[in-house]
């Protein structure tokens, strides 16, 4: 999951980025509105965290521009102003949620998590696709009630696939979402991890949860929800 963090206070920005990274997100940091807009335009982003009080281009302007350009990823507003007029305006212009400074990191992570889930069309914190259950809060994954032992990277890959269950995701998209930008994009690491994940999720080959679409990428093929498959 690739996040854009637009925050002009360098210490806060670095510290927040570090903690978001620890939680498994890729974070691009922009120090002002203009840089933020550049990143928002150029990078494939899953969620943006935007401070309202930015130098250069204001946060409100930035949100307006991002939305005007048709970008639909969730935007979380981070602001020191807790005036309702500001909150309402930001939400009206296209933000999806707000947190007021000084924010608790846990709260920020919870909001980010919820927004990402929602963007993938999930209303609950537990993602369920047939026999596979992934709890985004506890990061516990079970298949038919059997708990899986996943590495951090495997978990993030699975979460990304499940959040976009049913969608085709290119290798480039997946690597951009899971790796830092300086990582070599067309390596076959993704293939390797997909292979491992398949073995762990479906050792007997009965579900075939991850489809490979030649030349196009991968798709988490199990239908959302448990009722259909149970």
């Amino acid at each position, binding site marked *: 999951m690739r996040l854009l963090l637009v925050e002009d206070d360098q210490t*806060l920005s670095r*510290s927040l980025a570090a903690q978001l990274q620890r939680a498994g997100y890729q974070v691009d940091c922009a120090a002002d509105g203009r840089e933020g807009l550049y990143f928002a335009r150029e990078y494939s982003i899953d969620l943006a965290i935007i401070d309202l009080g930015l130098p250069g281009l204001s946060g409100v302007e930035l949100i307006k521009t991002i939305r005007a350009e048709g970008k639909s990823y969730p935007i979380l507003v981070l602001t020191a102003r807790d005036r309702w007029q500001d909150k309402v305006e930001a*939400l009206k212009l296209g933000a999806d949620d707000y947190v007021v400074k000084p924010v608790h990191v846990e709260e920020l992570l919870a909001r980010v998590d919820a927004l990402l889930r929602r963007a993938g069309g999930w209303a609950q914190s537990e993602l369920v696709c047939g026999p596979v259950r992934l709890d985004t809060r506890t990061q516990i994954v079970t298949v038919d009630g059997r708990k899986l032992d996943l590495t951090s990277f495997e978990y993030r890959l699975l979460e990304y696939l499940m959040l976009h269950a049913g969608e085709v995701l290119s290798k480039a998209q997946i690597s951009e979402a899971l790796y830092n930008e300086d990582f070599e994009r067309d390596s076959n690491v993704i293939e390797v991890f997909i292979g491992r994940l398949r073995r762990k999720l479906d050792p007997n080959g009965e579900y075939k949860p991850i489809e490979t679409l030649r030349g196009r990428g991968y798709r988490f093929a199990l239908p959302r929800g448990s009722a259909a498959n149970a």
Partner: protein
Amino acid sequence: MPARRLPAFRSLRARVIVWVSVTLTVLFAITIVGLDLAFRRSTDEAQRQLLEVQLFGLIALAETDEADELTLPNDEIDAQFQVPGSGLYGVLLDADGRPVWQSRSLLGASFPVGESLPGPGEQRYSRVDPPDLPPVETFMMAVTWEFADGHAAPYTFGIASSLEPLMTRQAAFRRNLIGWFAGITIAMLALIGSLLGWVLRPLRRLERQVREVDAGERVALTGEFPSELEPLAASLNALIDTERRRLVRYRNTLDDLAHSLKTPLAVMRTLLSELAAKEADAPSATALDALNREIDRMEQRVSYQLRRARVSGATGLGVEPVQVAPVLEDLRLGLDKVYRDKGVACELAVAPGTVFQGDPGDLTEVLGNLVDNAYKYCRHRVRVTASSGGGKLSIVVADDGRGIEPDDVTKLLERGTRADESVPGHGIGLAVVRDIVELYGGTLAIERSVLGGAAVLVEFTRARAAGQGGAVPPPSSRA
């Protein structure tokens, strides 16, 4: 200055009317006295001349009788002397003052000679009020009559004319004079009154507009004013504008202050949580926890005080009435996003034309906090009803949650409590609402809603000029 003491003089119109009335009365009184005096003099003079003419007429008719005495022939003299009580009387006195002839009009009454007879060759006018006649003016002339045989004897001719016709004429003149001047005074006052109406009309328009600005029905003074008032209107507009800018600047300063206070707090907190993630050993974890709690407290204080300070809490000159419905709709749109997972059904029942007389930021702050709390604590339903009329705005925000404990309601609404510290959860939001409502002199109450949860009732009244900084009256809470 009597102008300070008499309430009547506080009106410009009254001042002018009083001044004009007094001045005209004095001026006209002097004029009336002068004219009356002049008229009286001239009529008195005319009367004397008439008396003189008549006296000389008598002298011309005087003749000697058989007894060699001077007398007047009754059949030749003027008819007025013949008619009793005609008001014109004549007499001829001998040297001893005995009448040798008197006109028939006297009808037995004696001629009002006065105190004494004029000396030889003397003429005398006098006014006499005799007991048996109405007041008269007399003219007497002492002459020495030379008879045909050459001897001479002193005689006095006297004539008296009733003053009544003269006095009647003079009184009528005076009455006419007073009547005319009174008429002129009244006409002038009426004219001045209408002139004042015309002159003061722009002033009244100005006053009305200022009142409307104060009531929040108008943003600035508009229209053309007379050149004397133009500078005043311009100054007032400048004042209104300055006031508005001042408020904006003040809020910007507070925003900057919030930013500059909260960003360091945010930095501290994230650094602490970074540290906490690295330092697993117990002693530093406890210290970090303690630090975190301090940051929380600081954050609460800063947040609460800044939000409090930002409340404009009043008309603020030149603030337009705020439509309530759009504010609620925007709020619902925003909160629906924020609480999307919860799937809240928020129902807005706003009567058409519901307005808030005050600062839009204050209204958004009140509604934002109340509706956000409702979304947060409801199960699935929130209902906001609002209506205004008769200078009152009533808002009820209800939800179907657990409601607020009666003890907490008491704490939240108790005057003088630090609401930000009294009830966690609803705390800051409701505390800010309470402060705003207090500043507007409104009322705040918390009841149980028909939906099952809490219902927060807010009522703002327009007549709040004296309610500035006023208290929240005892809530009609069921608690």
